[in-house]
């Protein structure tokens, strides 16, 4: 048996039947040189298979890691979205939470207005306890208070008592006292006035909400030199979220640079330095549409060709951080649907070009050859051939 025996090639091309292969090996063992050659070739093939196994395992690991990252990312995005929604919601609600509720505002305002009206007619101004008591007391007691107020000087003294002594809050006491006895020019500068002003909103609410009451608010307001302002209707506006929360950073393909390929011609032949040997056709793909989560986008073949291949570019990241690509092809009728996964290419705009039977990826400022073998994981190989680069980027 010679070292160039055609059966060696046939054996490694799996062209021999199992019986033929067995017989061939038995015979080859008798020829050390041939046997060594067979062993060497077998070692190379084992090495190729080992590389394939490593790649396939890497593919499985990377894809699972990506899915786990994605699900973890989804969880954190959801958590972040909820936290943001809560913060925004709380921020919007805070002024209303911080203030008394509308009902309490109204009741405070009513109370305040009633106090003002009461103050106009009653001296001395009673404490809340007194007022509560009053409401429960008989008319005679009320009349006694009124008769006491007629004594004038006594009532005035009563008003000038320290608020802490009679339990009336200082501001209220000041306000009421000044409402009754002081000149507007005096109390306008006072702290009580400032407080009253800050409560204008309540008066405003009151003005619209208790119109039906018989309280003469205008008179009360006029008594303290205040003007009732028209109230603005309170409107609740929905918070509109802009866009959707995305689980992955999305990259859209760059708009095709018209200068790169001839936009007018369907099949563009780029300029070539070698006129006698026309260069293959450059096919360009449309800009990306239908961007989905995790995808760079869908690149559509712009120039119709016999194959009309369609591409989906998917941006992906894996824990290895090593740039790699994965190509998958599904043929539906005469159309080939390619999915090209770009692992760890970073943030980039991507376009695919075809020169003859080869496909190239423009990522960032570089061009890489795309391995179109279905089910293959490939390492990005930068295009350095000047003639190819010239066609891709004339």
């Amino acid at each position: 048996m010679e070292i160039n025996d055609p059966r060696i090639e046939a054996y490694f091309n799996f062209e021999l039947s199992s019986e033929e292969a067995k017989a061939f090996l038995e015979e080859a063992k008798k020829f050390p040189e041939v046997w060594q050659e067979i062993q060497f070739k077998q070692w190379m093939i084992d090495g190729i298979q080992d590389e394939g196994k490593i790649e396939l395992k890497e593919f499985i690991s990377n894809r699972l890691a990506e899915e786990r990252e994605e699900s973890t990312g989804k969880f954190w995005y959801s958590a972040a979205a909820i936290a943001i929604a809560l913060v925004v919601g709380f921020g919007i609600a805070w002024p209303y939470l911080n203030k008394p509720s509308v009902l309490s505002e109204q009741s405070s305002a009513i109370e305040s207005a009633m106090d003002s009206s009461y103050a106009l007619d009653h001296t001395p101004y009673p404490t809340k306890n007194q007022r509560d008591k009053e409401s429960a007391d008989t008319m005679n007691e009320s009349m006694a208070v009124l008769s006491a107020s007629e004594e004038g000087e006594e009532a005035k003294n009563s008003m000038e008592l320290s608020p802490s002594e009679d339990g009336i809050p200082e501001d209220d006491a000041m306000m009421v006292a000044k409402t009754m006895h002081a000149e507007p020019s005096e109390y306008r500068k006072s702290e009580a006035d400032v407080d009253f002003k800050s409560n204008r909103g309540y008066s405003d609410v009151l003005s619209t909400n208790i119109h039906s009451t018989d309280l003469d608010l205008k008179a009360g307001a006029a008594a303290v030199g205040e003007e009732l302002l028209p109230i603005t209707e309170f409107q609740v506006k929905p918070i509109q979220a802009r866009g959707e929360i995305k689980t992955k950073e999305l990259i859209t393909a760059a708009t095709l640079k018209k200068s790169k390929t001839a936009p007018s011609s369907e099949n563009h032949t780029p300029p070539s330095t070698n006129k006698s040997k026309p260069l293959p056709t450059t096919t360009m793909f449309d800009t990306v549409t239908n961007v989905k989560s995790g995808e760079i986008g869908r690149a559509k073949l712009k120039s119709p060709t016999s194959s009309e291949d369609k591409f989906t570019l998917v941006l992906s990241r894996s824990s290895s951080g090593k740039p790699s690509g994965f190509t998958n092809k599904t043929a539906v009728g005469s159309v080939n649907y390619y999915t090209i996964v770009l692992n760890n290419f970073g943030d980039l705009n991507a376009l695919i070009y075809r020169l003859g039977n080869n496909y190239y990826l423009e990522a960032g400022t570089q061009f890489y050859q795309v391995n179109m073998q279905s089910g293959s994981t490939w390492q990005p190989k930068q295009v350095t051939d000047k003639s190819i680069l010239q066609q891709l980027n004339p």
Partner: protein
Amino acid sequence: MKQSNPKETSILGRIRSGDREVLIELYKAHEKMTIRHVINNSGKLEDAQDLLQEALVVLWQNARKPEFDLTVKPTTYLNAVIKNLWLKQLSKRKYLKDESHISGKEVAFNPDPVTTMDYGLVHKALDALGDTCRNILMMFYFDGFDMKTIAEANGFANTDVAKSKKHQCMKQLEAIIRKSYNPSDFYRDGN
């Protein structure tokens, strides 16, 4: 007449068409079972993960072999592969444990040819090859695609062109290896 489950049929079809995504689906479907089996049989979680990947590689490679005639569901087949591979692992571990009394020198003179074979040189040579050549060799020797598929995938006119290209690529790989290394270093005794 027994009808095959279309889902099960499609698994094999997808593997044969080179759809690697199906392996991820199979991994997820068998992960719990594999972990349970390995942990209940003296293994660890990492062993289970490695084992399942290994089993998927076996299914991937076997599915395209012409003689591969699957009479059971692919998932049943995969379960069987997982169990067989784990038995092999355990036997190997037991063997190593039983041989642990042998001195290091004796072990060195009786290496396991499979585990000691260094394919790093081939891996480097493959990286030095062009993408097309690398793909052709991987498709043929690892994935087990036929020449028609290889020709279509690589844009060759016909299977003859693909076959010729494959031959050239193998020669190229051999030349790269031979340039730096002596083939006799990798000679294995045929006995």
